[in-house]
């Protein structure tokens, strides 16, 4: 199955499937099937098939795998977003798992932080002045908190006003479990006509 130049996966215990698993184990960010295929020197379609199979296996979906009996779900799951594939602990075990992840566990965001984050997510690149105008309060402290949490970051300065503008980070996408900003929930149903909003220039 493997091309001549790649490692001899068929000779290894568990074959291609185990090789894909081995890579997933060391990835510390979502990985695409293309990167996996490149490392293993196997066709992307093969990797795609293996990933789908692994996901079903971890979820305990015996029927999808063609097994007659039942299959226990594993304590972890394989998830795919636009950014790629990644191993997560299964959500049901959140209460027992959180104690073991040293830091990086973030406390819940305040209502003010959430609203500011929403404005940045949907209006980026956006300056603090504009966020303030929308929220009707000073947002300096909240913006700082969001930057410290790694959820938003400073982007370029606005050409005209020179104001620093902010956008969301890949960590934000991760926390939302999405691969790109296009996957954000649609805001349109909540908004008045977009033409009205365009009055809100800084």
């Amino acid at each position, binding site marked *: 199955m493997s091309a001549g130049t790649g490692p001899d996966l068929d000779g290894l215990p568990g074959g291609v499937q185990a090789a894909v698993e081995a890579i997933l184990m060391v990835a510390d960010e979502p990985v695409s099937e293309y990167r996996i295929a490149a490392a293993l020197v196997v066709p992307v379609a093969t990797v795609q098939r293996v990933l789908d199979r692994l996901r079903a296996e971890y979820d305990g979906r015996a029927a999808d795998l063609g097994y007659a009996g039942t299959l226990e779900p594993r304590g972890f799951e394989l998830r795919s977003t636009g950014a790629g594939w990644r191993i997560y602990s299964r959500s049901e075990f959140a209460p027992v798992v959180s104690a073991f992840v040293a830091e990086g566990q973030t406390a819940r965001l305040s209502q003010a932080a959430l609203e500011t984050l929403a404005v940045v997510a*949907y209006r980026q690149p956006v300056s603090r002045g504009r966020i303030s105008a929308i929220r009707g309060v000073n947002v300096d402290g909240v913006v700082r908190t969001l930057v410290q949490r790694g959820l938003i970051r400073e982007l370029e300065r606005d050409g005209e006003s020179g104001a620093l503008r902010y956008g969301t980070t890949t960590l934000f996408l991760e926390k*939302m479990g999405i691969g790109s900003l296009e996957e954000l929930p649609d805001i349109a149903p909540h908004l008045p006509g977009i033409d009205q909003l365009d009055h809100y220039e800084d």
Partner: protein
Amino acid sequence: MHPGELPEPSGPGGFAVRLEDFAGPFEVLLSLIAKHELDITRIALATVTDEFLRYVRALHDVGSARALDEASEFLVVAATLLDLKAARLLPRGEVEDEDDVALLEARDLLFARLLQYKAFKEVAGLLDERMRAESARLPRAVPLEPEAAAVLPELDWRTTPEQLAGIARAVLGARPGTPAEVGVDHLHGAAVTVRDEAETLVGLLEGGVPRSFRALVAGAGSTLAVVVRFLALLEMFRDAVIELSQDAPLGELTVRWTGADIGWTAERLAADGAADGTADAGGAAAGAAAGAVRGEAGTPAGVPA
């Protein structure tokens, strides 16, 4: 309104109001106003506020942690409603009047602002839900095993101890949140000082030939320089080294040098402390006109380009 009746906390929606035209949750009131189904001018905001205060007090009495949250949220919404109402109550007159057009736009803006704020609030709720659901799963992000770490490309190290110390100074010195001074690096534009501009003006006027203000600022080169030159003229007028004359309102402003015999020089502005062009050209002009802006001459002034 029905005095004596406590507005009831109505589920997660919270605050409800009872008015002549409307009784129900505050959220519904807002959406009716937004949809133009209820005239904002008919709502007694004071009544709404009174009811709200009683509602929050009731929440507080039962020890609900929501009291503060709801209060601050209400303040934002109420302020917007108040703006909205003020705009609606102002006489509009004929639409030909430019001021009226501006007012109408302001009203529309307020509507949009209210709606937009509500939209982001709703979406913030969605983000919260999403992130909470997501945080139940933790991604695997563990240090590389030693074998795998061994194959990382050899580190290309070019940093000297002095360079690292420089980086440390920069990072540890510039702490977020408590800047030692207000950053002005976002203000670009050449430094223009009152003293320098006064010197230029003295050069233009010294011969004794009166010149128009228009001529004096003709070579200024930027709006900022024009503003600072104007400030310099105010300073010179205060020191009685120039005379100003204007034949008619909005007519040509003529400037004449009278300071030759008292030996006035622009250096004096440095010694005295003189008006200083500040970051905002408009603000500086307004401030100077009111005789309010005092600062140190020689301080660079800048405006957003």
